[in-house]
């Protein structure tokens, strides 16, 4: 009978443990494993203490119960016992602090990094600037609005996918300088173990040396506003040769984009590109249908800006509007993207200004 019960429990437990976990991730770096081992060490110390303390307590409750005629003692103090239960926990705490200090020292040792990347939190996206390379880009949520509003089936990486992932080389020490442009965010990839707050005006440091190429996903973990859940972190770890190729491609792409800015676009081309830019950068507040949220975010439809002077329209996108949630997009969008989204807003959502602007006319 006992064997049957044990077998039944194990059959239930095996598939269940494969589907979900309650323990922390072991991660993919030496540091994450060190943190995991420290966590397990402290966990088992706590288990032993818990079993010992509650064991004595429950045994005493059972053994000396009232129905067996036990009579409680009445005494005020026992200095020896009090000293013992004060000194022993102190020794245990000091013993635990020694390996914990070792791990903390490793976590804070950002010296001798091979690659340095500034990570800046924005509402609601991440910006990655490679300090040794001329690479600077934004990483936006790539999950479609249809999936978010349940109009399309959700893919396995729902809300954990971006347009431009952070790319780092395998087996190289990468130092992150983490800050924020607006409110407090927090940059976290569970497989890297270390989570750091991105605070405006402060630079926090963190580092990682990933041993396995692959794609690692995380999230912003500091409540940062309406779209806090929609600014994931995706890190692509590449073999060194692939990383070098990616760096070269990024530089080539930047040159190509600079060339694009001087190209002449038709109105249809600008509107087509502007729709994509709008959905990526504007729809979060002004809504995919351009109706905004009354009292919070103004509508694009019939807006005095989007149906007013072109220069003022460009200015508010480039420089934002202080005192409101309208942020400056000059760093986030290229001249082509700004020209495209301005043209799109003036000729979509019921607006029909019939005018358009060339990227070359955008002054950032």
């Amino acid at each position, binding site marked *: 009978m006992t064997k049957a019960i044990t077998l039944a429990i194990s059959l239930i437990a095996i598939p269940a443990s494969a589907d979900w976990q309650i323990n922390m991730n072991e991660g993919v770096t030496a540091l994450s494993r060190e943190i995991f081992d420290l966590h397990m060490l402290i966990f088992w110390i706590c288990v032993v203490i818990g079993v010992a303390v509650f064991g004595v307590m429950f045994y005493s409750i059972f053994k000396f119960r009232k129905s067996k005629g036990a009579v409680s003692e009445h005494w005020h*103090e026992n200095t020896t016992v009090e*000293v013992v239960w*004060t000194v022993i926990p102190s020794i245990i705490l000091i013993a635990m602090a*020694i390996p914990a*200090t070792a791990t903390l020292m490793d976590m804070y040792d950002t010296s001798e990094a091979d690659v340095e990347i500034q990570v800046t939190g924005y509402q609601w996206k991440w910006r990655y600037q490679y300090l040794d390379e001329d690479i600077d880009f934004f990483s936006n949520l790539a999950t479609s609005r249809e999936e978010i509003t349940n109009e399309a089936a959700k893919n396995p990486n729902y809300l954990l996918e971006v347009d431009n992932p952070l790319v780092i080389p395998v087996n190289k020490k990468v130092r992150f300088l983490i800050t924020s442009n607006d409110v407090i965010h927090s940059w976290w990839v569970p497989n890297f173990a270390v989570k750091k707050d991105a605070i405006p005006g402060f630079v926090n440091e963190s580092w990682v040396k990933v041993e396995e190429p692959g794609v690692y996903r995380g999230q912003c973990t500091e409540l940062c506003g309406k779209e806090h859940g929609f600014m994931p972190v995706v890190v692509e770890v590449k073999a060194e040769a692939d990383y070098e190729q990616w760096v070269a491609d990024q530089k080539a792409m930047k040159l190509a984009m600079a060339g694009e800015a001087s190209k002449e676009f038709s109105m249809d081309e600008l509107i087509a590109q502007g729709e994509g830019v709008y959905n990526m950068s504007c729809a979060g507040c002004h809504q995919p249908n351009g109706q905004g949220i009354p009292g919070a975010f103004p509508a694009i439809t019939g807006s005095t800006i989007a149906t007013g002077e072109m220069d003022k329209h460009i200015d508010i996108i480039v420089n934002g509007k202080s005192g409101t949630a309208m942020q400056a997009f000059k760093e986030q969008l290229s001249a082509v993207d700004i020209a495209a989204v301005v043209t799109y807003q003036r000729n979509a959502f019921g607006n029909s200004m019939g005018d358009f602007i060339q990227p070359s006319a955008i002054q950032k």
Partner: protein
Amino acid sequence: MREWIRAFVGVFFAFLGVQSEADRRYDFEKGRFSVFAVAGLILTFVFLSIVYGLVQLALIYVQ
């Protein structure tokens, strides 16, 4: 001398947070404030030295 030893023992147990009611009563009735203040300052310095030493020990362990 006996007064000083009692004061140090009293302050040491105060650091631990443990003291018998009889000793506490004795310290408050017979002890001098100045002796306890000096003992308190000296043991504070000793305590800080121990903490500093433990941190150095942890750092040695790290390296």
